[in-house]
Structure formats: structure tokens, C-alpha cells
């Protein structure tokens, strides 16, 4: 390293890579993430891209970005405001500038600031020409203009690529430069490139050359004088890897198959942002996983219901619009009481909505979106890595209670990533299929003789689950279906019944069976370090990170607040009502217009207040902290000032107090 360079210590950094959707920003961010993960930082990522595969080049709708927050301590979100923006063109600058705090570093590729690209982004003049002038819109930022494309093309000359192909390696130049700035290990990226481009030596050579040129550019030129060091985070003992939610969820489903010793059957239809689960599970045939890409959403769940009847661990995966199509079949699974895991990777709605953006607006759809009284248990993961355990839990409930179960992930969890402590398979819950093997009821026939029979609705007295009797089992032949059946303890023979009292009892039994799941749930963990908080913040799903980070901000500012996060939305854990009663104020942050808060108000008559945003992006921790602060002030009857822990500078610090 040259003598002029300084090394500065930082405890955390937020970087956003932004460019045109063809510029390879997702790959760049993903590589930087892997380097940081291997280095040992804690991290959270936020990919954000358009629904169009190739939106119009150079335009603002075509901007794709990838944000990574990495730190030397435990963090919970991808960060509200980037410290560094890498902008590959004018549109990327314009689309992201508003999110930057004053003082942020902006690295721009000057090559793409052509008249044509400036016009497309809506700039009447080149902001890079005005640096330091009166009308400098970038005043207050540290702007580093670099001809990324030009230097890249020069660096890869020896490989004889076309100018277009040579320029495509500019994302690796940017990655190399940022890797130098933050002292990231380069080996994982070199190894990754060698594998990815093994069959095209020219492209491989160019990418490695561009990556190294970026690193060397940082080290040798005068432009960058400071290198930053972010030490590895102190994390719990264990072996870690970086993982996205969709991958963790897929692995969780494979694990559920292994733990239940059942073949896994997925019936699915491609839909953003859930398709990755179909892709991933289709690779794991060696674990006895069958995947069927069906002709439509309904056939996906139909085939899964068939496989469940046949004795397999059945799954269907989709996003909100697909759930709408599957609703009638979900009702059939409720009525026939067959195990089924229904994965909804929620996206912005209604209708087609925002396919690549995140939202939590399908909770009430999962809860109530069927005809008749059709209760379905709901499980929600709280972080990308947690999708693994949540998938195992959904399968446990489905198989144990013979019921369809919703697993509500979302677009942020699906594509976001974090370090994940790899679990021990032996410590996962063991799931017992307990297929019925023989008669389960004794009746007296017309001649007064005792007859051994099989009753498909003779229920387990604790769980109320009915037997899972699969075809091929002699003597247990039976018919199930969508019509109401006689299935009470007295009449479990399962024949069609239009008897009013039977229907009333069956509706209640199906509801009670779902309610009994609560008997198997652990007590909630209330995070209330002082034990003196008057305000409880309660959430579900992917808002765990922002809520946790916001609570930490409030506590660092010297105030008390408690946090509870729900994994089970139906049924609610048994202790939830008592916990809610223990606080003066209850705040429910959600990426919808108040669906959990509505359920809590209805169930517990609690004055739960909503904090609701539907930007298609995760909640911002600093804004949420301010909202919590207002409520704390209200509850404690005093003025609250969060100072730098709210929206004031320097902000964006989410370390736990006394960490």
C-alpha cells in the first residue's frame, strides 16, 4: 500500500450499488456480500430491481440497485440511508440521490454521463460539470467521478473483446474498487468468476482483469486516499453462511421431508418472487423431492392435494395473486383435513401490483380469504435465514394437525440475505406422519355384533387431528371431499351429512383443531430489557429487522420500549393476550394498512395503533423510532427527543445499547 493512504476504522457502512438493469448490479452486490460474509461482518442486504427484465436502458424505471449494510456488530436492517452510492449512470444517480444523507460518498461512472443518458434521466445539464459551483446539486456530498467504463475497456484490451463486451466488465471494476476501499478479501470473487466463466476464457480473463484493475485503481491513484476497516462482528459461536430467504425456505422444505421421512411433492406455477423456490426444489430430487410445474396455480395446489392424499409432504408455492386463484382448493384441503404447506411470498398488490417489491398485505387474505368458516394456521418467518426454521415449523403443524398451513414470506425476505448460523439437522423437530394402519372404531351392526371399522374422522383427543389413511392400506378404503361430512366424535364415519347440528359441530371442530395448535407453541419472547417499558411494539414477518433496529435507537436515546415479534398469526400464542395487557400503548408496524392491528383489536379488545407504510420497501428504522418516541412520550407524559438516534444526523446506527 502506498504511503499516502490512511486507514480509518468504522463500525458499519451502508453501500448501494445502482445502475441500469443490464449493468450487473445484483451480481456486484451479491459478490460484495459474499466477500463481507466470509470476512466475518454481520450484514443485511436489500436488492431492489424493476419487474421488467430489461426496462428501457438509461431510464429511471430501469434502475436496479443492491444495498448492503455490514458492521462489526449485530445489525438488523439493510440501513435507511446509504453512506456510499455507486452510480453507473445519470438515472441511477437521480433515482437514489434523495436517499443519501449529507456527507455521503458518491462514486459515478463519468463515461455514462453523456447528453443522451442525461436527457433520459431528466437532467438538463450535467451535474458533474457543476461541482463546486453555485448550482451544484451534489454540494454536500463527496463526489468521486471515475471513468469506470473507459478504464475497464483499457484494462481488458488484451482479451480482444468487442467494446461492448469489454465495457460489460465495468461492474467488476467497481467491485474491485469498493473491495479495496473496505479491505474485502478478493479470493472468493476470483474463485466465483473462475467457476462462472470456466467455459469462456476471454470473458473470465476480462472480468478478473477488471476486478483487479479496480482494486489497483484504489490503491495506486491519488483519487482515493482513505481505506476503511470494519472489523469482523462478534457473533454467536457456530458455522455461518450467507443465505437468501427463498434459498433458506427451500432448504427448510427439504429438511421437513428428511425429518418426517416423507417424500416431498411441490405443485407450483411460476410467479415472481416465488419462482426461485420451484427452481431450487427441482434440484433436490436426490432427497425424494418431486416438483411439478403445473398448467396454472389451481393445478399446482390440486396436484399437491392429490400427493397429500397419497401420503407425501405436499407443498404449493406462489405469491398473492396465485393465492387468490388457489383459494377454493385451500378450502378443499381445510374440508378434507389433509396436510399441505402453502407458501405465499407476498408482493405489492392488489392484482398484479408491484411484482418485484415487498408488502405484507396478504395476512387477512390468508386468514379469511375463503368461502365459509375455513381456518388455516399461519406461520411467518422474520428474517431471510429464519425462513428455514419457519418452513420446518409449517410442515410440523401441517402434518401433526392434518391441515393446510400458510407460510407467509415476502419479497424482501425472499431476495434479501444475511449470515445464517447453519443448524444441526438432528436438533430440528422430528415430524411424525403416523399413517393410519387399521380400524379405529368399534360399532355394533344390525345383528348386534361388534364390528371393527375405520372412521376417517375419528379424531385424536388432544390435537383433534383426523387419521391420515393413505391409499394402498387395506381395510381403510374411504371417500373424502368438499361436501360436509359426518365427522363428529359420535359420527366419524365420514359419510355426506346435511344434518344442521352436524354442520354446526364440524365448523366448530375445524376451528377448535386450529386453536389447539397453540398448545404446542412456546411462550413468546418479550424483549423488554428494563422491564419498565410502557410501550410495546409488536410485529410479524420481515418487519422484525426495522422494528428491532428502531427499538434499539429508542433505547440508546435513553427511553424504554418493549418488542414482541409473532411467528404464529393463527392461532395466536396463548400468552399474547396477557402480554398486551401489560403495556399502556401497543404499536403495530406493518407494510400494509393495518391488518395485524385489526386482528389484535378484534381478538383482545386492545387499542393497538398502526404504523403503516406501503412503499414496496422495508420500513425505515429511524422513522419508526421517531413514531415509537412519540408514543413513549405520550405514555410517559413527557417530551421525547431521540437526538441522533432518530432522524437527526448522523443517525443510522442500530447497535444495541451496551453491546
Amino acid at each position: 500500500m502506498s504511503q499516502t493512504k490512511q486507514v480509518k476504522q468504522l463500525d458499519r457502512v451502508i453501500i448501494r450499488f445502482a445502475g441500469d438493469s443490464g449493468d450487473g448490479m445484483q451480481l456486484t452486490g451479491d459478490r460484495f456480500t459474499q466477500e463481507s460474509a466470509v470476512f466475518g461482518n454481520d450484514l443485511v442486504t436489500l436488492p431492489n430491481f424493476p419487474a421488467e427484465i430489461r426496462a428501457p436502458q438509461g431510464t429511471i424505471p430501469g434502475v436496479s440497485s443492491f444495498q448492503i449494510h455490514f458492521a462489526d456488530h449485530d445489525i438488523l436492517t439493510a440501513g435507511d440511508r446509504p453512506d456510499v452510492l455507486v452510480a453507473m449512470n445519470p438515472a441511477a444517480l437521480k433515482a437514489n440521490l434523495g436517499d443519501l444523507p449529507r456527507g455521503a460518498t458518491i462514486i459515478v461512472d463519468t463515461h455514462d454521463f453523456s447528453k443522451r443518458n442525461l436527457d433520459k434521466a431528466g437532467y438538463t445539464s450535467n451535474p458533474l460539470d457543476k461541482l463546486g459551483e453555485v448550482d451544484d446539486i451534489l454540494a454536500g456530498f463527496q463526489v468521486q467521478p471515475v471513468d469506470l467504463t473507459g478504464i475497464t475497456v483499457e484494462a481488458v484490451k488484451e482479451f480482444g473483446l468487442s467494446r461492448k463486451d469489454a465495457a460489460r466488465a465495468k461492474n467488476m471494476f467497481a467491485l474491485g474498487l469498493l473491495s479495496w476501499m473496505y479491505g474485502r478479501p478478493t479470493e472468493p470473487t476470483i474463485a466465483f468468476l473462475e467457476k462462472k466463466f470456466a467455459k469462456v476464457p476471454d470473458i473470465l480473463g476480462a472480468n478478473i482483469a477488471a476486478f483487479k484493475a479496480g482494486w489497483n485503481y484504489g490503491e495506486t491513484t491519488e483519487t482515493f486516499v482513505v481505506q476503511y476497516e470494519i472489523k469482523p462482528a462478534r457473533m454467536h459461536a457456530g458455522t455461518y453462511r450467507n443465505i437468501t430467504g427463498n434459498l433458506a425456505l427451500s432448504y427448510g422444505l427439504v429438511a421437513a421431508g428428511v425429518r418426517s421421512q416423507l417424500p416431498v411433492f411441490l405443485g407450483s406455477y411460476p410467479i415472481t418472487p416465488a419462482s426461485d423456490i420451484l427452481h431450487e426444489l427441482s434440484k433436490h430430487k436426490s432427497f425424494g423431492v418431486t416438483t411439478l410445474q403445473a398448467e396454472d396455480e389451481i393445478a399446482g395446489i390440486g396436484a399437491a392435494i392429490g400427493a397429500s392424499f397419497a401420503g407425501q409432504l405436499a407443498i404449493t408455492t406462489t405469491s398473492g395473486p396465485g393465492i387468490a386463484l388457489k383459494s377454493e382448493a385451500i378450502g378443499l384441503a381445510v374440508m378434507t383435513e389433509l396436510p399441505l404447506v402453502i407458501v405465499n411470498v407476498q408482493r405489492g398488490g392488489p392484482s398484479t401490483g408491484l411484482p418485484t417489491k415487498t408488502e405484507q398485505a396478504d395476512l387477512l387474505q390468508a386468514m379469511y380469504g375463503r368461502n365459509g368458516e375455513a381456518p388455516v394456521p399461519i406461520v411467518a418467518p422474520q428474517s431471510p435465514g429464519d425462513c428455514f426454521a419457519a418452513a420446518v415449523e409449517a410442515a410440523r403443524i401441517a402434518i401433526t394437525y392434518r391441515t393446510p398451513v400458510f407460510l407467509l414470506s415476502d419479497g424482501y425476505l425472499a431476495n434479501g440475505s444475511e449470515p445464517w448460523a447453519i443448524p444441526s439437522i438432528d436438533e430440528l423437530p422430528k415430524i411424525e406422519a403416523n399413517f393410519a394402519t387399521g380400524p379405529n372404531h368399534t360399532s355394533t351392526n344390525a345383528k348386534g355384533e361388534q364390528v371393527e371399522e375405520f372412521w376417517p374422522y375419528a379424531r385424536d383427543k388432544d390435537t383433534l387431528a383426523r387419521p391420515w389413511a393413505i391409499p394402498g392400506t387395506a381395510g381403510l378404503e374411504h371417500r373424502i371431499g368438499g361436501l360436509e361430512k359426518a365427522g363428529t366424535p359420535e359420527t366419524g364415519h365420514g359419510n355426506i351429512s346435511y344434518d344442521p347440528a352436524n354442520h354446526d359441530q364440524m365448523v366448530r371442530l375445524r376451528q377448535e383443531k386450529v386453536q389447539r395448535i397453540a398448545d404446542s407453541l412456546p411462550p413468546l419472547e418479550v424483549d423488554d430489557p428494563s422491564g419498565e417499558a410502557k410501550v410495546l411494539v409488536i410485529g410479524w414477518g420481515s418487519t422484525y429487522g426495522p422494528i428491532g433496529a428502531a427499538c434499539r435507537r429508542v433505547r440508546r436515546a435513553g427511553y424504554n420500549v418493549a418488542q414482541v415479534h409473532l411467528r404464529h398469526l393463527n392461532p395466536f400464542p396463548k400468552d399474547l393476550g396477557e402480554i398486551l395487557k401489560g403495556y399502556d400503548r401497543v404499536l403495530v408496524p406493518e407494510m400494509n394498512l393495518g391488518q395485524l392491528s385489526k386482528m389484535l383489536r378484534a381478538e383482545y379488545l386492545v387499542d393497538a395503533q398502526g404504523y403503516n407504510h406501503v412503499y414496496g420497501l422495508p420500513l425505515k428504522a429511524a422513522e419508526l423510532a421517531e413514531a415509537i418516541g412519540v408514543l413513549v412520550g405520550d405514555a410517559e407524559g413527557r417530551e421525547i427527543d431521540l437526538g441522533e438516534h432518530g432522524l437527526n444526523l448522523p443517525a443510522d446506527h442500530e447497535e444495541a445499547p451496551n453491546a
Partner: protein
Amino acid sequence: MSTIDLPMPQLGTALVPTLGEGETQTAKDFSSDQEVRWCPGCGDYAVLKAVQSFLPDLGLRRENIVFVSGIGCSSRFPYYLDTYGMHSIHGRAPSIATGIATAREDLSVWVVTGDGDALSIGGNHLIHALRRNVNMTILLFNNRIYGLTKGQYSPTSEVGKVTKSTPVGSLDHPFNPVSLALGAEASFVARTIDSDRKHLTAVLAAAAAHRGTSLVEIYQNCPIFNDGAFDAIKDRDNAHALIPLTHGEPITFGVRDEATGLGDKALVRGVGGGVEVADTASVAAEAIIVHDAQNPDPSTAFAISRLTDAGYLNRSPIGIFRQVERPTYDDQARAQVATASASAAAQGSPEERLTALISAGDTWTVD
């Protein structure tokens, strides 16, 4: 993995457990204790009786037979058979049966559906089951009307049908289920009639024996909402109503000539690629089409299917239109899983392999 060369089991039921030495079954064994609740005179009774009588002939273990239905009058069928069964939701039976058949090679899977169930709300599932060639038999009861909802026109009703929902006549052009199935790449397509027990049973036997999706259209009279829809073709005095198809035989029908064994009408190649009816006496013997259900090219079978009247039914070909061998979806899907599982088994227990899977890639350890 591309397609897999399987030792193709010839029979649809090849992998289904059969009765043991000395074990027998009768129609009674296949009758459930449920009272049959179709309208008096409904064609469904005859089909149910035929199926209950025919199933013992397969010699399969009763517990390895599954009937799946959708919604409609005929979809009550599974309740009356003492096998495993599911009465599902409208139109979706082929998708549910696809899951069952793919999950389990040891089951004989049957779908009972109607013209509304299979061709209207469930049209998509029907055509995709046929193109995938999942090992199952689909019995499509065609009464050309909606019965359960009390008499609206169906996708097989003739144009101009006056019903409750079409007081001045229906406008929709009907589907010909056989033509549709042939167009959907079906490997087995047949048509039979509720009232002809012998023909029905023979077609069912061939359908069950076929490995792949077998579609059997069964003309079935609804005495309440579309009575007499098939009277013309059931009329014994109407010699030219039915065109029976027998594989390997010249296609003739009508008044039989005792000397030649041929009917007085014959099917010959028509202009424009179709098939026409001619007087047997006026055409050369070699001009008469010999029925070839096993022809890989479905064009002639399709042309024959077009001889079915689209309006009131005065004429219809019956029998097996097409019966070709094609790898089934479920055999291949199971083979992919089995191949992958077999080669992975040497790499350790599922738990060990799962640990290796989730620990792959870049990892780091914190002490």
C-alpha cells in the same frame, strides 16, 4: 436430465398390486354402503353398474384403486365405490389425480367427470393431463347439459339449445370431446354409450390397460334436463347412426352384407384431407379406410371424429379412436427422482447429505 429410457410397462396397471392366490372379488365388494342418489332413469346408474362389475376383472387390490371426481351429477360416483376416493372441486379432478398418480406408481387412478366439469371450468386441466400423459383413466360422462345446476346448456350442447339460461337459444359452438382430446396430444381416446354395456366394458378394459392418460367419452342420457339427446343414435332402426371403430378392420357400418361382412356404408378419404362416408358398393375395397388406432399420426383419427354431429346427434363414430404408446409423465418423474436418489445414496444418509447441502459454498466459523 433429459428424458429417461424406461423399460415401459405395457399395462396401465402393471405396477399395481394384484389379488393373491385364491382371492376373488365381486361387484358387491366394490359397492359402498351409500345409497345411490341419482334421478330415476339417469344414465349414470348403468355406468356405475358397469364399472362395479368390471373392476373385479382387473384383479387389482381394492385398496390400490382411487377414484377422483370434480363437481356435477356424475362426480358423486366415488361415494358409491368402496375404494379410496375423493370428491373434489369443480373441474380440478385431473390435477388432483395427477398428484396422486405421480406420487404413487402402485395405484390405479380413475377420474370421473362430466361435460361441464371437464370441458368448461376444468378444460385447462383436461388438456394438460392429456398432453402430459399421466397414467390415469378419465371417464367423461357427456350428457350435453348441466344437470346439477338444473338445466343450463353445456360446452357440448348443440347451438340453439333452449335452456333456462338461453331462453332464445344458445349461441356457443360446442366442443367435440374426442376432437379436443386428439388435439391435446392424447395417447388414448375412445367413445362409448351408457346403454351399451358390452361396448362400454370393452372400452373400459382397453382404457385401464393403456399406460398413460386414457380419455373415455361416455354418452349418457339425462332424463330430466336433456332427455332423448341420444335417442337417434340408440335407435335400433337407425342403421347408420353409429360408426363402430375396430382397430385393423375396414371402417364400414349400416346394413351388414352377410357375404362380405361389411356394412353398406364405408369411410373413404375425402377431398381436402378429411374423411367421407361412401356407399360400400360403389367404392373399391382398398379405398375403404382400415382403422389404425395405433397410427402415430392422429390426422385420420381426427378426421373420423369430425363425422360426429355437432347439432342434434344423428350420427357418431364410437370405439377407440387412438391408442398409442408414449412415455408417461409420472413414470419419468419417478425415474428422475429414483435415479438421483440412487446415485446420492452412496454419499451418506439423508441427514448427512442435507447437512452437506446447507453447509455448501462459502462458510466461516465463529468460536
